[in-house]
């Protein structure tokens, strides 16, 4: 599934709002590595995610470059970057079935779509859930489907925006293991934004603390 694993390079990044510098960063994230970014609200964490994903509001100015391997990303629109996103909420499209959500993630020319979807559901213990309404799933089940949707889209890097903060404690452990396990297995460079020290510990990678 991941023929060539590549490193995400954040080069000389400086994000400013009306002349004030919000944050500066210069990091590489290796395939399979999780970089954890921590910091209080207002430290520019969400701005960083918006920049990387390609949704930065024009109110902000960004200097610096973003590369995946030797491919420049920061000049590309969001849909061509190949950077997947997981939010606090699973964000399963409420108008599609569970299977529909997974199909939405698959690239248009993917082969054996139904088989891939079935296999993905089986991996997370939800075999046969294709036609279910996402609203009838539990919070944990929704999170797992969201993760599989992300992986089926074959991203080349992943951003996690406090993905465990809305789960209860027991479920949180389980999801951490699942998410980090899958991302590592897929060999994806990952950037995790969180408030929770335990998330950072479970991620097991380097930690950056923003002020």
């Amino acid at each position: 599934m991941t023929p060539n694993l590549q490193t995400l390079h954040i080069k000389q990044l400086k994000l400013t709002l009306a002349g004030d510098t919000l944050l500066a960063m210069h990091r590489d994230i290796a395939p399979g590595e999780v970089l954890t970014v921590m910091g209080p609200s207002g430290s520019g964490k969400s701005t960083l995610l918006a920049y990387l994903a390609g949704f930065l509001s024009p109110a902000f100015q960004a200097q610096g470059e973003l590369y995946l391997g030797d491919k420049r990303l920061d000049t590309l629109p969001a849909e061509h970057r190949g950077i997947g996103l997981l939010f606090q909420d699973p964000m399963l499209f409420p108008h599609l079935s569970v299977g529909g959500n997974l199909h939405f993630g698959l690239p248009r020319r993917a082969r054996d779509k139904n088989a891939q979807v079935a296999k993905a559901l089986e991996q997370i213990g939800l075999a046969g859930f294709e036609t279910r309404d996402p609203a009838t799933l539990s919070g944990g089940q929704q999170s797992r489907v969201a993760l599989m949707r992300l992986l089926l889209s074959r991203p080349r890097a992943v951003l996690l925006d406090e993905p465990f903060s809305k789960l209860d404690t027991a479920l949180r452990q389980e999801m951490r293991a699942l998410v980090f396990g899958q991302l590592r297995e897929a060999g994806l460079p990952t950037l995790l934004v969180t408030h929770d020290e335990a998330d950072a510990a479970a991620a097991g990678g380097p930690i950056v603390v923003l002020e």
Partner: protein
Amino acid sequence: MVLLPAFGYLPVLGGNTFHLEAWQDLWARAGLGHSVWLSYASGLITTLVALFIVVLFLAASQGTWIDRTIRRMVSPLLAIPHAAVAFGLAFLIAPSGLLVRWVSPGLTGWERPPDLLIINDPSGLALMAGLILKEVPFLLLMSLAALPQLRPDSRVVLARSLGYAPGIAWLKCVFPALYPLIRLPVYAVIAYATSVVDMALILGPTLPPTLSVSILNWFNDPDLSRRFMASAGAVLQLGVTLAALLSWWIGEQAVKCLSQRWLTNGARSSGSTAIAVGGRALLITVTLLAISALFGLALFSVAGFWRFPDALPGTFTLDHWQRILPSVATPLINTLSVGLTATLIACVLVVATLEHAARHHLAARRVQWLLYLPLIVPQVAFLFGLVVAAESIAIRPQHALVVATHLLFVIPYLYLSLSEAYRRLDPRWGQVALSLGVSPWRAFWQVRLPLLLAPLLTACAVSLAVSIGQYLPTLLLGGGRVPTITTEAVAMASGGNRRLVAVLALLQALLPFIGFSLALLIPRFVWAKRRQMRGAA
């Protein structure tokens, strides 16, 4: 284009020089002063009363089930066209109308309809009542749409924790913040009420009529030279509306100054019972009047023989429906084709605008004033200009012209009702879609549009209702050759058979109602298997 003929310039009619004859003719009209006064006063008084009713209700409303029920009953009233409300009210309060029948002869002793001039009364009270019936739901819905962003509940809770009674808390802490948000709708109401034509034709005084109706009469006068005077009148109408708006603005400033002390004087509960009772009672009265008016229409449309003081007809019949249905086929088709075309065009334009703004993070503040312009400038004033303009470049009155003019009024309403839904849609939906690698185009068709299906259909129903209700644009730009249910109904107002009028007015009220029902039912049907989508709708 309306200015030139007002000063004597209209080459088609041989007016090649500028002069003030039209104005001299206008000033010489008997009763002009009274007409002007009627337009000015009815605009200001009705807006004041309607706003008073709405504000008092909102202050009294505590979110109990009674309040929610009242709200739910008011919203459909907005969809009923002005003309239908006017007819309904006329049938209700006329000397031989429902109200008199219900209390006669028991209370009044009348065995025959009293010889009173209730409808078309010279001081315009019936017209004002009709206007208020339509303005209250409009202002209420505008306020309800603006309120959530003010977080009124926490404001009231805070004030109540300081010892303020609920109603007073609302008036002192929420209303001052709400008013700026509904100022434009209030101005639109004033402008509409000072220049309304269809309601004034049905309920308003006749000798002399309101300024707007006089202008229409001069414009349609077989003596084409009257058009110069009509143009001068249209300019005068603009002045009257501006004067009303200016008076209101001065009133606003005065209230602002005078209320400063009241806001901070510390009085916590004086008058709170009056608010709680009055606020609800007034709104219920308005709602009941409107519902009885519709009930009256329905009753008259199937009434056979109906002796005067009887509360109900002696016999029921479908004759009126059968008699009129064959002849309404064309108007019905026109109404629907114009309404649906205008809605479709407006929908594409508005969605494209909103989607563009959403993709480029644009905040569209300044656009609002521009959008409201057709709602604030009196129709009579600029539609004549449009007609003159169309004639001078030899565009014949026709369907397309009517649709184009309807767009002027349909687009603002569609934009207003949809932009809020668009703004509230979580931007992360689009972001998730894009980050999964789909194109912005697919993200729009497959994610944003389906998620917005319910508000989109509601907005379309609003726009269809607006188009169906248009009287003056249809009449003028269609040159009488595009009859719709609305123009036919109003045309029958003066001499027509009351029962046939009831059928037409009921049809007119029914069409928007069907639109709104579809807007409500389609999402439920489409999303039958999607729980969250039904909740969102």
